[in-house]
């Protein structure tokens, strides 16, 4: 029972890290989007899609 609880907590932490990583990556893509927006709206849309 104890082991199952520990495993669930580890899985929760892993899931949190995965979501956090995805959000950080999304922020990075947002920076790229803003940079391309300076070049043209078409390039920015290309990055976003």
């Amino acid at each position, binding site marked *: 029972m104890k082991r199952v609880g520990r495993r669930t907590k580890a899985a929760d932490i*892993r899931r949190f*890290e*995965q979501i*956090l*990583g*995805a*959000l*950080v*990556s*999304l*922020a*990075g*893509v*947002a*920076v*790229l*989007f*803003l*940079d*391309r927006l300076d*070049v043209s709206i078409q*390039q920015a849309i*290309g*990055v*976003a*899609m």
Partner: protein
Amino acid sequence: MIGSVGITTAYSMLMKRHTTGIHGAVSTTVFLTVTALVLGVVALASGEPLPDSLPVEPTIALLYLAVIGSVVAFLVYFWLLARTTLLLTSTLVFVYPLVAIITDAMFERNVPLTARVDIGAAITLGGLAVSLRRSVSARR
């Protein structure tokens, strides 16, 4: 942008669920045939006239997109989908803009890469490292 990520992830999920056990070439053929038919109808409905003669550079670009950007890319995608986790496949959505910007920088000399691109790429790759770190160590 969040919509794009959500749609791509949902798409990967559906593809993983429905193409498991099917050869990548079959999935690619079905997928691209349906896409070509739908886009063909949309192109005809838009009423744009066809050019009298095909311009060389745009035609080469179109052929590149059709062969490398579609057929080869989807063959590799379905191959990857069958062999890796959905998490790993879903993170590809963050790599596409990086590949696009690097490819663009290789051919487009008038638009140099700025420090902001380096920062954006570093943040994106850092996020991917955080996302994938555990799944790699958990596999050991």
